[in-house]
């Protein structure tokens, strides 16, 4: 199934006294590879959390799914701390997200094939018996990607998934994202790597509390825009 189009109208978010987002207005075409960019603290993650229904916001967010039936959403969150005290392996975690039958009674045969495939794709097969608490940052990010692959996503939402990855991991993730996009899914990707955005994204939205720019990557991500919005953070990161 092709991915949904997303229409955001007058989206505002207020946390306490400070406005986080003000009157966001943009649309993402179905099946697009779309990047959200903007300075740190500009509200990119908050925008995504509003889209996922996790923040009380004003305005409307509409998903138009082809055929009217809601497809599946894969979500790769920002690198999160994983439970360190529980005896929970990668396999256990994947079982927990794949089936209703309690994970401690074993993995269903029907779920096992999908888990094997997902771990293989992110390169975690050899590490599957390790406990979550002993994983490196890069391994945790691979695991978070693996869970987003089950079930196969029609909309893939990624929140800076590559921050702790080594170069090989980053290449693997890029390839996976392109594969999923090629399969018809809509990809919404928070990405601070402007070179990568320019190379891969079809459209971008630049957010700093409000929409600074939105449109096709070539016309939106101009040299002027990059200097104006990202001058300080990009220079800082390069240093």
């Amino acid at each position, binding site marked *: 199934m092709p991915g949904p189009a997303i229409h955001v109208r007058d989206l505002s978010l207020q946390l306490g006294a400070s406005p986080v987002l003000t009157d966001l207005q943009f649309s993402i075409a179905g099946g697009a590879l779309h990047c959200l960019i903007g300075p740190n603290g500009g509200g990119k993650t908050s925008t995504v959390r509003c889209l996922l229904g996790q923040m009380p916001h004003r305005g409307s967010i509409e998903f138009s799914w082809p055929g009217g039936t809601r497809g599946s959403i894969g979500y790769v969150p920002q690198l999160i701390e994983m439970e360190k005290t529980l005896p929970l392996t990668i396999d256990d975690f994947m079982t927990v997200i794949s089936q209703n039958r309690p*994970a*401690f*009674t074993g993995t269903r045969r029907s779920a096992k094939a999908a888990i094997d495939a997902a771990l293989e794709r992110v390169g975690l097969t050899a590490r599957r018996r390790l406990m979550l608490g002993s994983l490196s940052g890069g391994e945790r990010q691979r695991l978070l990607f693996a869970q987003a692959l089950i079930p196969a996503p029609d909309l893939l939402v990624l929140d800076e998934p590559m921050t702790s990855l080594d170069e090989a991991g980053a290449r693997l993730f890029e390839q996976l994202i392109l594969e999923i996009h090629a399969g018809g899914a809509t990809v919404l990707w928070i990405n601070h790597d402007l070179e990568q955005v320019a190379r891969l994204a079809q459209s971008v939205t630049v957010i700093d509390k409000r929409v600074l720019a939105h449109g096709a990557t070539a016309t939106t991500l101009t040299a002027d825009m990059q200097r104006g919005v990202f001058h300080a953070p990009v220079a800082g990161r390069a240093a």
Partner: protein
Amino acid sequence: MTPVYAWLREQLMLLGEAGLLPSVFFYEFVINALLCSLVIGPLLGCVGTMIVAKRMAFFSQAIGNAALTGVAIGVLIGESYTAPYVSMFSFCLLFGIVLNYTRPRTRLSADALIGVFLSISLAVGASLVLYVSARVNTHILESVMFGSILTVSDLDMDVLLVVTLITLLAGLPLYNKMLLGSLNASLAQVRGVNVQAVEYVFIVLVTLITVACVKIIGAVLVEALLLIPAAAARNLCRTLRSFVWTTMLLATLSCIGGIWIPMQWDIPVPSGGAIVMLAAGFFIVTTLIRNLVPGFREARL
């Protein structure tokens, strides 16, 4: 269910008389208590793994303390001294739900808020219990606090069975969702888990279980049996599967041993105390194994 219990008791007593089971099986109340422990052990063990995952040990402690208040209210409004279930269930459910409702609505961290509720429930519970203790035999209150197998009746067994059934029907299909909700709420929500609703279901189940186990283990010590077997198993296990089954096994052994050992050797301790001391023994042993046996040292994170 009474005819079933009677039949079971009869069979076990026959085995006891024939010398196939220890002599304590001659007593009806011991058999009642042991039957209960076969249910309570796996139940508390399984729920205990989730309590540890959700870091809610002190929540169940607070519910246990609230059960004291429940008993006192029951005595005040004229319920039976030995089984004031209506008051216990209603007060504890109210208490648990209010606590969970308050949690996201204060600026306190979860442990601080639970600490506040725990203190309140202990203060009110202890005061009310001492206030009503003038009216009833204090041994009854002692048994509510620390457990007593002498008072386990068919009604208590019915209550326990019903609560167990509810937990199986409601809890098992939600086990993975509860676990995912506690690992990462945001991820769980995207994956279609109604995190808040699942949380309330868990709170209600823990409350029901706590109240149903008060007779055997006592209001003050139920929390220990939810926590200690899981902590002991955690020392040795490296997968979810071994963790849950080991916890259930240790909890069951603690219950059976805690009831049987004092009876067999005439040691005058309350059943709850014996059960928890046995569980603590398992914890000490597994901690030693973890630190002394080379193969388990790697399990340390």
